Each structure stands twice: as structure tokens, then as C-alpha cells.
């Protein structure tokens, strides 16, 4: 068994956190430490166990449970490497928390919208996801959960510096807001780099979602805040929402221009991407993501009749390594993953059947 039954259950859910427009998702994470306990990196296992127990006792409190219906908890050490990778792909665990460390506990809502990690970088890491641009809705939920926990846990707090976190860059609110945004048209027009660089002046950072050789495979970017002190959570969220919405509008305007001025080239790119995914027999993740990105552009612009944005969101998740292994229920080396990924695309896009003899071992002549 390479996947924990609970994680398999999470993997079977649809891509609820992936939306339809250029702004695909919003992620919120809040870091808190329990007062009087050293932060996880320097704490002894006794302190870590105490912190985890306190955190769990608070999470199981009646008024907190009401905010996290149907949650389950697993000791982090019982999760396999594949489980953790899958949780990263599902946006329920940060990549920096995939390593093995003592006394970590992973808590997750059954619907996959909320997760809590105890003893990651901080004692508590609360994380929520939603489709589209949804800061307000997520912050209301996050704030309610944090307030409920704060009634039972005394968090490390400094009157001037706010909530104290292990990373000084998160001190203050301890809040990290991230938007996942799809920007293929701005990439084709050559203006994307400048637009994203300008975000730095506003205290935001843009990073590739799937970095491959320094480039963003699939034209997907994460836009996050790099400051958390000196600004109210709501003000930061609304400021970021405005900026990300402006980029999204610019992307849509550029798409309309492309469709108007360079329709033939646009249709050609969509058709080639469709042809590649429908007929491939071996495809690596980055190439699949780039082709999927163009497919999404086509789906958004009404080029494809039978390929919906929902299909795209499902394929985006399914083509990632841990999801492929989970679907096959076995660890697959890269080459076999590429082959199985291609099979999934052909099945979904009604491509040709496997070539005769494909996948069968070579039998030497007698």
C-alpha cells in the first residue's frame, strides 16, 4: 500500500479548488505558535508532543469542530512520500513540509478545503483553498477558525510585532495569501515578465507554479504577499485582489486581441495542443502542462466544443506525478509515468487505442 486510505479518499475528489477564469484559485495560510513553547525547529520532542496535544485538544473542542466538519488526523510520519506529494499537488500541504520531522500531525477536512499541520515551521499552520478569486470568503472562514482556536490556545504575540512566527518574514499577521493565475496570452504577447516584475514594488512576489528550468510550465503563476507586518489582513487581501484582478483583466484583453488579430495562429496553436495530447504515447509533465495551458485558452475562448474547463481542471490534477501513481496504485518511475500520463490523455480525449504490443514485454524468439 503506497497511499494511506484517507489520502486516496482525498485524491478521489474533484478539483474543487480550481476555478474557471484566469484567476484559478486562492490559498490562505496562517501561522501561529503556542505561547511558552519553543518553535518546532529548536524544540525538544517533549515540547513538540505537548504543542501537538494542545493543538489537537483545541481542534476537537466543540466550537472549533463546528467549523471543521468531518475532519481526520494522521501522524505525519505515517504518510508515505507519495502521500505527501499528493497532498502538495492538492494544495493541502506546503512543499517545505514534505520532509520527515518528529511529532508532526496532519489534520484535514473531508472535503479537502481546509488542512492544519502541527509542528511544521510553526506549531500551527492553518491552510484553506477556494476556487477563483475568493479572499473575502476565505478570510471570513479563516478568521472564524483562528478566533475559535484562540479561545483555547494562547498564541505567541508581541504588542508591536504581532504574532511571532519562526520566519521573521511572516511576523505580524502570520498570513500568507496566494493567488494561482493562468497567463498564457500575456506570455505570448511578451508583456508578462514586465507586469509580474512590477508586483515587487507593491510587496508581492510572482513565482512559477511548476518551475521547469526557471520557466513556468503551463503558464501558471503564484502571486503571494511578501510582507505581513504593518497592514491589516483585510487591507492586504483587498489590495492583492485588486492587483490580481487587474492582471486578469489584462490577460483577458490580450486574449481577445489574439483572437481578433491572429485568429489563424491562435487556432493553429489550439489544434496542435489538442493533437499532441490526443495522440501522444509518452509525455513528460512540463510538455503536458504547456499543451494543457493552450487547451485551456481554447476552452475559455470557445474553440473546443467538447472539451470543457472542468475537463481541463481534472486533467491538470490527474497528469501530475503523485496523482498518476495514486490512480495506478503503484509507484511509477518517470518513464512509466510519462507513458501512463499519455494513456490518460488519450482516454479522456478519445484518442487512438494503445498500439498493438505496446506495454508488453519483449519476448525473444525461440
Amino acid at each position: 500500500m503506497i497511499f494511506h486510505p484517507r489520502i486516496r479518499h482525498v485524491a478521489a475528489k474533484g478539483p474543487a479548488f480550481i476555478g474557471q477564469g484566469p484567476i484559478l484559485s486562492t490559498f490562505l495560510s496562517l501561522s501561529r505558535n503556542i505561547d511558552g513553547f519553543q518553535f518546532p525547529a529548536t524544540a525538544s520532542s517533549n515540547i513538540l508532543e505537548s504543542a501537538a496535544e494542545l493543538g489537537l485538544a483545541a481542534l476537537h473542542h466543540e466550537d472549533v469542530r463546528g467549523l471543521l466538519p468531518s475532519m481526520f488526523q494522521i501522524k505525519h510520519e505515517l504518510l508515505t512520500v507519495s502521500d505527501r506529494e499528493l497532498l502538495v499537488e492538492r494544495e493541502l500541504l506546503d512543499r517545505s513540509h514534505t520532509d520527515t520531522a518528529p511529532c508532526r500531525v496532519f489534520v484535514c477536512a473531508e472535503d479537502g478545503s481546509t488542512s492544519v499541520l502541527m509542528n511544521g515551521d510553526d506549531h500551527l499552520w492553518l491552510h484553506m483553498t477556494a476556487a477563483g478569486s475568493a479572499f473575502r470568503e476565505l478570510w471570513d472562514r479563516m478568521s472564524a477558525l483562528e478566533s475559535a482556536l484562540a479561545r483555547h490556545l494562547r498564541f505567541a504575540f508581541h504588542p508591536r510585532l504581532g504574532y511571532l512566527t519562526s520566519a521573521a518574514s511572516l511576523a505580524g499577521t502570520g498570513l500568507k495569501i496566494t493567488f494561482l493565475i493562468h497567463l498564457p496570452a500575456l506570455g505570448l504577447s511578451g508583456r508578462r515578465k514586465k507586469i509580474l516584475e512590477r508586483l515587487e514594488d507593491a510587496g508581492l512576489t510572482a513565482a512559477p507554479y511548476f518551475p521547469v528550468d526557471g520557466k513556468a510550465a503551463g503558464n501558471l503563476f503564484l502571486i503571494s504577499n511578501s510582507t505581513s507586518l504593518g497592514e491589516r489582513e483585510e487591507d492586504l487581501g483587498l489590495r492583492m485582489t485588486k492587483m490580481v484582478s487587474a492582471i486578469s483583466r489584462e490577460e483577458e484583453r490580450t486574449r481577445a486581441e489574439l483572437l481578433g488579430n491572429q485568429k489563424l495562429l491562435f487556432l493553429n496553436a489550439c489544434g496542435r495542443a489538442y493533437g499532441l495530447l490526443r495522440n501522444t504515447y509518452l509525455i513528460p509533465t512540463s510538455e503536458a502542462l504547456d499543451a494543457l495551458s493552450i487547451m485551456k485558452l481554447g476552452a475559455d475562448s470557445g474553440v473546443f466544443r467538447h472539451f470543457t474547463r472542468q475537463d481541463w481542471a481534472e486533467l491538470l490534477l490527474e497528469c501530475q506525478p503523485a496523482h498518476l501513481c495514486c490512480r495506478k496504485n503503484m509507484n511509477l518511475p518517470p518513464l512509466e509515468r510519462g507513458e501512463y500520463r499519455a494513456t490518460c490523455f488519450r482516454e479522456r480525449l478519445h484518442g487512438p487505442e494503445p498500439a498493438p504490443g505496446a506495454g508488453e514485454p519483449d519476448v525473444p524468439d525461440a
Partner: protein
Amino acid sequence: MMLCQICKANPATIHIQEIANGERNTLHICADCARKRNISEDSEANSHFHEMLERLTQAIANSADLKLAELFEQKKNQEDEKQQDLACTVCGTTFQSYRKTGKLGCAACYEQFGQLIIPELALLHHGSVHCGKTPPETVEQWQDPAVSERINLRRELERLCKGLDESIRREEFELAAELRDRISAIEAELNSAELIPDESAPEAPPKKTRGRGRRKST
């Protein structure tokens, strides 16, 4: 009396000096020739004065900059030397390790490195004063008897473990044996009731075994 170098008739009343590539050239002209060439005594004098002032200011600024830079460098080296020794008395995190990783070990680090960290945070962030959510006034954290008892036990365990190490170092073996027994008792108590249950998916009902069932060991 010096005659104008242009008309060579009138007395020269305006003297223009130009220094180029280290060479000094002087032009002596009369007021009429100067007017014809749009040179006034005042403007020349002013431009020379301004030029001189500018050069002087630049020279002073350069030397001041150099001195300031030297002073700044000296001060920085002194600060760096001091910072190398700085360590949190609670968790042992050094200021050097914070510089490398950007991470602190406990809440006390913020107090102990405060003077060095707060100006940096002000530059890094939107401001230097928190203005978001604040914790509630009353917290019931310590009122859960089961949890707080276990936390107290763990704190006692930490204290005893340190004492054990110390007694072994001092070769006080009777005390060490006593501490060891107390540590074992606390560990047994803590292990008897684990408060972090692991919730795995409900297991499938056991399959019915065909045939005669479990073999008895002989």
C-alpha cells in the same frame, strides 16, 4: 597697462582663466570686445565663482564620503563581530544562523535580537507595527486538566533528563540511579494514555477464511 588681446587697442579689464587638462590659459579682453561676445563681467565672475564653489563642494563631499564610508565600514565590522557572539538564552539560536536562514527559534529571540531585527523588519515589511488581529483577552488553554497535567509531566521529564546528564558528569551515581527511576516512571505514565490518536480509514471487515481457520500453534 595690459591691452585687449582681441582689439589690441583698449585696456584689458576682463580676465578669463580656463584650466583644461592641467594647463592654464588666460584671456585678457576689454569691455567692448566682451560685450560683442556676450561676456559680462558679472556673468564671468559668477560662473567662475559657481564653478569654483561646485568643485570645492565636490572635493569636500568626496573626502567626507570617504571618511564616512570608512567609519561606516569600521562600525559595521564591530557590529558584525558583536553579532557573531549573540545567541538566544532560551533556545540557543544565534544571530548568525538567523542571518543565514531568516528563521528564529522562539518568541524570546524576537526580544533578544529585537534591536537588530526590528529596523530590518521595518524595511522588509509594510511598516514596523502590527495592526491586524489581536488575541482575545481570556484564553482557556491551561484549564484542560488532562492536557495540562501531561505538559507538566513533560516539563518535569525535561528537567530530570538534564539532571541525569549532570549527575553522570559529576559521577554522582546514586543520584543518577534515582533520577533514572523517576524518568522511567514518568515515561510510563505518559505512554499509558496517548492523546494523539491516529485516525486511519475504517478498516474493511475481516475476510471470512475458508477451511479450518487459524492454525493452532503446537
